[in-house]
């Protein structure tokens, strides 16, 4: 009898253990683990972390691991990983990357997923889908949209007797002169003038050129590209921005600053080292957090033709190697949904969500600039890499600021390299 009881107990225990093990294995099989990689600085993603945590709490079978990688390296890393069969399931992409990744089939064609399960209020509601489209197919779902506006310290402008924010580039130079007091360590206009290939000078240089009716490249007829600037136009832009350094309206130390998110700019505005700078929204909010004085935004100065900025932002792509495209798509749909934007500190790239957004009064500059903003489509469709043009512009503007080259010499270099690039592309 004792033996029977022992056998019975053993059998029962074995059954329970086996059942639990099988259930565990089954549940492990059902549970999908996705990796989502983003490139914004950790200081700016608190809201995104909250949104991902909320997803994980409500989706026990689709767990998402959030990865952060520095912006400059993310694209190259993807290009190395994906061909090797690795990489994150879902990737945050700058708008300008999508076509490069799509052309090499490193991200999935989203059309079948969009058709089966449309995101938000439908794909027609999304902004900047042109940048995410290659050969009529969508490879990245626009997620957040932004542009730049000028950011400033209203108290410093008032103290200098400036009643309204400078309206044009020339007004900005004049106001900067009035705002500069080197004895106090206060400078009129601060901007990232560094020569790094991914520096922020590229943005400002293009705003200046575009507002004066110029563009580095233009498509004269489908597939035919030519320069949209002359050496004199580029030299003019270089001379304009170099005057800030030459006249002491911008500190020389900014010749080494590449990012608009650099502490010299973000903290400098709050400390009063800089009276005016320019920021995207999330950087402006970071600056507000560090400033004891109120900060405001204003439209980008206008040139001889118009006032303009660029419509930038982020798209979401799905790795061509993912084993879980459906689950990844479900997560992407969640990220572009209104719940995410309750905590995620970015403007949504959807017209309906943007319309329902309450912009704080301090962010009026972005409200004014968003309708005037244009994407970098004009460059992305060209045969030259945007990253190559960015590096070229930053390098040559930096060479002028540091006194290495005159504006004419540097402008001639820009023209020559752009022309050489177009010729090489034409040869194939």
């Amino acid at each position, binding site marked *: 009898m004792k033996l029977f009881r022992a056998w019975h107990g053993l059998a029962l225990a074995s059954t329970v253990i086996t059942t639990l093990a099988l259930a565990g294995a089954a549940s492990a099989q059902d549970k999908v683990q996705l990796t989502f990689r983003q490139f914004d600085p950790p200081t700016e993603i608190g809201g995104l972390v909250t949104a991902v945590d909320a997803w994980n709490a409500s989706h026990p079978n689709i767990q998402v691991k959030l990865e952060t990688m520095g912006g400059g390296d993310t694209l*190259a890393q993807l290009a190395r990983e994906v061909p090797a069969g690795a990489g994150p399931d879902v990737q945050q992409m700058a708008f300008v990357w999508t076509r490069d990744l799509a052309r090499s089939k490193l991200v999935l064609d989203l059309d079948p997923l969009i058709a089966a399960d449309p995101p938000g209020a439908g794909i027609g509601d999304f902004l900047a889908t042109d940048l995410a489209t290659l050969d009529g197919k969508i490879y990245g779902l626009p997620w957040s949209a932004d542009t730049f506006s000028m950011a400033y310290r209203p108290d410093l402008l008032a103290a200098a007797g400036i009643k309204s924010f400078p309206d044009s580039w020339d007004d900005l130079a004049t106001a900067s002169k009035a705002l500069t007091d080197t004895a106090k360590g206060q400078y009129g206009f601060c901007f990232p003038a560094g*020569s790094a290939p991914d520096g922020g000078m590229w943005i400002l240089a293009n705003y200046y050129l575009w507002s004066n009716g110029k563009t580095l490249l233009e498509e004269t007829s489908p597939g035919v590209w030519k320069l949209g600037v002359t050496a004199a136009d580029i030299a003019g832009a270089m001379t304009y921005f170099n005057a800030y350094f030459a006249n002491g309206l911008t500190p020389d*130390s900014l010749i080494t600053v590449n990012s608009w998110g650099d502490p010299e700019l973000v903290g400098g505005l709050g400390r009063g080292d800089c009276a005016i700078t320019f920021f995207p929204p999330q950087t402006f909010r970071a600056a507000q957090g560090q400033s004891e004085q109120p900060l405001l935004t204003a439209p980008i100065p206008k040139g001889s033709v118009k006032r303009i900025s660029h419509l930038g932002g982020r798209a979401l792509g799905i790795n061509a190697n993912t084993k879980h495209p459906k689950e990844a798509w479900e997560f992407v749909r969640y990220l572009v949904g209104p719940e995410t934007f309750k905590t995620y500190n970015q403007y949504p790239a959807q017209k309906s969500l943007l319309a329902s957004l309450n912009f704080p009064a301090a962010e009026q500059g972005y409200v004014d600039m968003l309708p005037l903003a244009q994407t970098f489509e004009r460059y992305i469709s060209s045969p030259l890499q945007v990253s190559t043009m960015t*590096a070229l512009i930053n390098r040559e503007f930096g060479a002028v*600021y*540091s006194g290495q080259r005159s504006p004419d010499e540097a402008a001639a270099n820009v023209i020559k390299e752009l022309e050489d690039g177009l010729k090489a592309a034409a040869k194939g």
Partner: protein
Amino acid sequence: MTTTLATARTAPRDPLARYWSRNRLEPYALVLPAMAILAIFFAGPALYNIALSFQQLSLFDLGREGKWVGFDNFVEVLTDPATGHALFNTALPLTIVTVAVRLALGLGLALLLNASVFRRWKLGWLVRSLVLIPWVTPPVVAVAAWKWLLDARYGVVNQLLVGLGIIQQGIPFLAKTNTVWGAVETMLIWRELPFVVITFLAALQSIPSDLREAARMDGASELQIQTRVVLPLLRPVTAVIVMLTTIWTFNNFVYVWLATRGGPGDYTQVLATQMYTASFVDYRMGSGAAIGVVMSVIMFAFALIYFLVVFRERDGVR
């Protein structure tokens, strides 16, 4: 009969062992694992890089075969004026200047640290540990710290110089063409000097004290002992230090990239940053690989010539 018996006793019975013994394969078998590791982790990537240098391939098409373009990438790289500028920067301000300074400072510091006073007070371990601090600091941290120290407005160096009345306003060391190389070289030398010091120190401590004593008894002054006895004995280790530091520095990417990204403009562009830009900014993997091959060839030629000169002199061949 005696011979036959002896042969039978020494020859292995196992046919495999007999084969190995006869063909003397054991040495090869013993070095095989090391060779395999070298082939997989060094020769493989090097060969892949050489193959890439003859192709036109975008970063986004890695893993696929590019278009074979012969020597086009090399022609493009070698005829580009930017390469000459980068080669000059790599050779002179980055390598020759910093190797020479490290050698002089390293030898001087090693001679100081080898002083008997440290042994007498049992402080040798302390000074050796202090000297090693920069070397155990990751280069990324070292450059970030130096950038902060050299900041024009809030950096300690500028605040000190202004406080002492040497300058009126902070100098943006990394933004000015007349100071940027000095700043980069300072970062590099500070971080890499300990290797030279420790290597010289080890060599100094291996010199038998009898030699110094003998020279002293022969009436040599301290200066003569150092110049006529110690320095000649340090020649072999100096040769190795020069060789290693030159190759490491010539190929170095970290200091320039983290400190200046090749700027302002392209003032501090070196071959390693040019290679990175070609590959990961312009996405032209073939051009980047060609720059890498050119760098390897230059360093290979340097090593060959250097060793020939050093060993010919050592062996007394004139």
